[in-house]
């Protein structure tokens, strides 16, 4: 078993640093399990949303098809999908033991994620002005809970990746932090997976009516 | 071993004793004395499943007793080491297949009865006035600790006491106006939840033989925790022959604004009109919308068998209720809705309410 504090060179860097120590393997597997649980969590939120979609107290409240706009959703989708690719690049450089490039790609990922969040906040704000509020109808509660939980995951992911970047900026890659980077990137992909369903089930299907 | 048998004997004696003491429960309340088609079907299912379960228990118990009697460690075999058997495919197949077969025997009637009990198609057939063609429909509305029964095709509303004809399917639309409750008449059939967000439909049939045995009165219960007085959310079912039922509906329809008889009752009427009528209607054809009907309809109050669903129907108890309903039914929604009544006012109101009767 390799030691976590060992200093590495390109040559000695293992080919799967995210699973090179027992701690790393545990973290890797534990995180996947966690994602399995998260799937159920989001499944429940999706289910709730579908059951309460367009359920409003009276006809003065806007419905899904009155609200969602294609441009905004499309832009948000592109941002988040792209950030998934950039985080893949980061992991590519991690495997090649290229710390600087990894950090750079992570930074891009974080920026894309932040832009996505910005759009989302703008969107929520816009809806609230149209009378679609968290507290105005069951539909509103369900919508903000599902999309908001996802947004919360994005925000948490951003903070996580940022703090990993800052914490390890000086010391570079080793077998103690490599699995952490890797797991954070898995989390980021998972957020993207959830978004694929959100833009399909919530937005696109909402627009169809 | 002897100790064990002893214990089992003790328990079964207790159980049998208890059963003997109480039989199958009270016939107006027990699911074990079914008095209607639905309850009978359910009783059949209970018997069938019990038989299967007893069979299972016997098999297990026989093996069990044999094993623990036969293979005990004794001084003699203290150090012997039994053969380490891995398993036995034949046995394992047997105890997989037999339960599957038993379950099939149970599953078929289960599915079939489940569909039968859910068949409410007659209540969907309406004539051109929007009335149900030839089925009696009752809308049951559950409220915090009281029940309302509306006969939509007859234009009658009653509360607390449900009136039904015997030997005929009665169809129910059930719902709740506040929290979830559940509508249950154990001797006549299983329960159906009254949900706040939608109506449930089901049917019951009250047979005349069973009704006779209980002097035409069954107990109904709320079966879903709904707050402090959940335990007191009882109602009564009065069964009538078809003719009597027709008579009853006629009487109810003809029930005029009640005329108070006597000075005391007249006084009571005044108090009633001042303090009670905002919530309680005193005619059977209350035309107000559901939302406005926030308390039990009192049109035939004098004919009821219970005060507030639980107390013996007499003047003393009525006074007790009117004086402080909270004492009788904690958490009820009448408490605090009217001013305190002094002794005289209580007498007056009691006299008035007790006079709210169908003309006989």
């Amino acid at each position, binding site marked *: 078993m390799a030691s976590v504090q060992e200093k590495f060179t390109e040559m000695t860097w293992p080919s799967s640093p995210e699973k090179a120590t027992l701690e790393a393997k545990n973290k890797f597997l534990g995180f996947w399990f966690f994602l399995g649980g998260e799937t159920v969590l989001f499944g429940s939120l999706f289910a709730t949303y579908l059951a309460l979609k367009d359920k409003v107290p009276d006809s003065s409240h806007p419905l899904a098809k009155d609200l969602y706009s294609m441009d905004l959703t499309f832009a948000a989708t592109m941002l988040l999908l792209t950030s998934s690719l950039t985080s893949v690049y980061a992991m590519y450089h991690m495997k090649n033991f290229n710390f600087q490039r990894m950090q750079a790609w992570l930074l891009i990922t974080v920026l894309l994620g932040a832009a996505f969040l910005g759009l989302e906040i703008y969107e929520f704000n816009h809806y609230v002005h149209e009378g679609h509020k968290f507290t105005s109808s069951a539909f509103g509660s369900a919508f903000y809970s599902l999309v908001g939980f996802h947004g919360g995951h994005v925000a948490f992911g951003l903070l996580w990746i940022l703090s990993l970047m800052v914490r390890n900026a000086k010391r570079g890659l080793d077998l103690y932090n490599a699995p952490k980077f890797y797991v954070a990137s898995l989390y980021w992909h998972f957020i993207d997976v959830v978004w694929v369903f959100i833009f399909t089930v919530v937005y696109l299907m909402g627009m169809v009516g | 071993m002897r100790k064990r048998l002893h214990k089992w004997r003790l328990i079964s004696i207790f159980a049998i004793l208890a059963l003997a003491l109480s039989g199958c429960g009270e016939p107006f*309340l027990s699911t074990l004395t079914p008095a209607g088609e639905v309850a009978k079907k359910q009783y059949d299912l209970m018997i069938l499943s019990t038989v299967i379960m007893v069979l299972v*228990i016997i098999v297990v118990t026989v*093996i069990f007793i044999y094993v623990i009697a036969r293979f005990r460690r004794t001084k003699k075999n203290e150090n012997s080491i039994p053969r380490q*058997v891995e398993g036995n495919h034949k046995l394992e197949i047997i105890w997989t297949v037999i339960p599957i077969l038993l*379950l099939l025997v149970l*599953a078929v009637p289960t599915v079939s*009865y489940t569909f039968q*009990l859910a068949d409410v198609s007659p209540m969907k057939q309406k004539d051109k006035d929007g009335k149900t063609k030839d089925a009696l429909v009752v809308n049951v509305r559950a409220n915090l600790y009281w029940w309302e029964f509306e006969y939509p095709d007859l234009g009658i509303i009653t509360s607390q006491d449900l009136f039904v004809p015997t030997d005929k399917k009665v169809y129910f639309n059930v719902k709740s106006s506040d*929290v979830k409750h559940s509508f249950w008449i154990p001797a006549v059939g299983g329960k*159906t939840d009254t949900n706040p967000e939608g109506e449930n439909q089901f049917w019951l049939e009250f047979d005349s033989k069973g009704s006779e045995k209980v002097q035409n009165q069954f107990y109904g219960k709320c079966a879903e925790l709904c707050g402090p007085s959940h335990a007191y959310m009882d109602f009564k079912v009065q069964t009538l022959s078809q003719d009597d039922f027709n008579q009853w509906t006629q009487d109810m329809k003809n029930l005029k604004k009640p005329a108070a008889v006597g000075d005391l009752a007249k006084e009571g009427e005044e108090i009633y009109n001042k303090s009670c009528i905002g919530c309680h209607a005193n005619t059977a054809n209350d035309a107000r919308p559901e939302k406005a009907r926030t308390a039990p309809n009192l049109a035939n109050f004098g004919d009821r068998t219970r005060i507030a669903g639980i107390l013996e129907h007499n003047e003393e108890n009525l006074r007790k209720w009117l004086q402080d309903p909270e004492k009788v039914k904690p958490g009820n929604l009448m408490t605090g809705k009217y001013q305190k009544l002094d002794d005289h006012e209580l007498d007056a109101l009691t006299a008035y309410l007790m006079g709210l009767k169908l003309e006989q």
Partner: protein
Amino acid sequence: MSTYAHKKGFGATIWDYLTTVDHKKIGILYLMAGGFFFLVGGLEALFIRVQLAVPNNDFVSAGLYNEILTMHGTTMIFLAAMPLIFAFMNAAVPLQIGARDVAFPFLNSLGFWLFFFGGVFLNCSWFLGGAPDAGWTSYASLTMEAHTHGVDFYILGLQISGIGTLIGGINFLVTIVNMRAPGMTYMRMPLFTWSSFVTSALILFAFPALTVGLFLLMFDRLFGANFFDVAAGGNTIIWEHLFWIFGHPEVYILILPAFGIFSEIFATFSRKRLFGYSSMVFATVLIGFLGFMVWAHHMFTVGMGPIANAIFAVATMAIAVPTGIKIFNWLFTMWGGNIKFTTPMLYAVAFIPSFVAGGVTGIMNAVAAADYQYHDSYFVVAHFHYVIVGGVVLALLAGTHYYWPKMFGTLLNETLGKITFWLFLIGFHLTFFIQHFLGLMGMPRRVFTYLPNQGWETGNLISSIGAFFMGIAVIILLINVVMTQVKNVRVGNDPWGDGRSLEWAIPSPPPFYNFKQLPLVRGLDPFWIEKMEGKTEMTPAEPLGDIHMPNPSFLPVTISFGLFVAAFGALYHVDGKDWALPVLFVGMGITLISMLLRSVKDDHGFHIHKEDFENEDKGGRA
């Protein structure tokens, strides 16, 4: 390492337990906390039975009864049964698979403290305006009406302890997958480990549904959302589904480890290999799998329609098959065996008829059309106490006696143990058998009292008498525990003499690193195999080397405590209290700062060097 702590006095011992990341000590913590909550829940049960002993009783008021009833169910399920199961999982599973530690020692400790503070928070409600009173199921329509903070305590308390449980579950999954000793293949794992594995998986998939349900309820009650407000388009059935999507797997979360404990006990005291091991594993997995497809059998009367009812009815019945496989395998484990009736074995033996009786009434409940009669009546109360008390509680009592030596190094007194057993068993049947009939005679559950002349008096009185038998039994158990610890007669590795799995190959209690050298596992029941070849210890799979151990940490306590504080802020926020928001932020701050500390401060653990072992004695052998 207990000697280490003892030398330093009481304060040091406390600190040691507050900061421990050792799974064996965490097991003891779970045992103590879960045991405490069991007493609380049991006391509540006794209050219930006193109130119901006679009609029209006024021992407690209507509102208070509902609080006691709710807290009894909630406490027993979440704060007693599950933690006690975690106690044995922590005490035994790493040892059974030949691991030095669990996969995430820190998270393991965090899981415990989250559970603990969640439980304490929930019980604070007693002193702060009233406990939750909407039943352990807290159906949304009723909880939306609740005017006290009771339900909010339920929501936040369960949320906190639920996270702890989820963390614990993930920890055990990874431990079992990644940390097995050389040779310990999946199909050589003891059945308790297997059932812990499946249970952990159920936790992983079931708890998120509860988490979401609790969130929705919290949003509605504390932040003005409308999920369950029918007037605003909401729907309360959503809660029922979410609760039972969690709730049904939950009952298998409870019973599977119980099955596991009994499997160990049957094999040990029959001195025989578990009959049909592979079908036992298969049945365990199948029960876990089917457990996710049947939740709506709690909702037959809701009005889902005959199609849904029929599907869920048949799916539910299917569970009888794998459970039956287990029952018969246990019987045939004893068949031809050499059975010794120790206290744990008595519990195991008594479990079979008790649980079968409860299981078959489960199948009766599954007959949807007939369940319209059983549902929400005492028949259901009888069913689930037969499976829970006759299954889970008997297993916990059995496990307490069985694993006591491994956890504490002493043997509980057998005579007192047997007295406890008989009193408890008789009391149990006395209490709950009659309840079947009460239910069939029309007695609804969750009633705070009942009127006379409905045919229920005798039954209820008998039932209440039975409960007191159980109470006395529990008190005798407590006496037994105290006596045993005072006498402190130490035992060796394998005090039962017939131990089969790895935990019995090392000292009782084991050293904090468990195995000096990882054992080589050569088959099912590895220790038995070695014993049969005349050896007294396991063949090592590795040379003596340095052992890596995790550092203790106080952060799990602070992280959990922060949430505990924050929960008060969230709860009183709706009352418009000025201090509520600051408290919320301070609490979250404590938690977040602790988490940040954890993540920026590298924690590489420490090593025990192999030289240190050389002069250490090997511990007594049985």
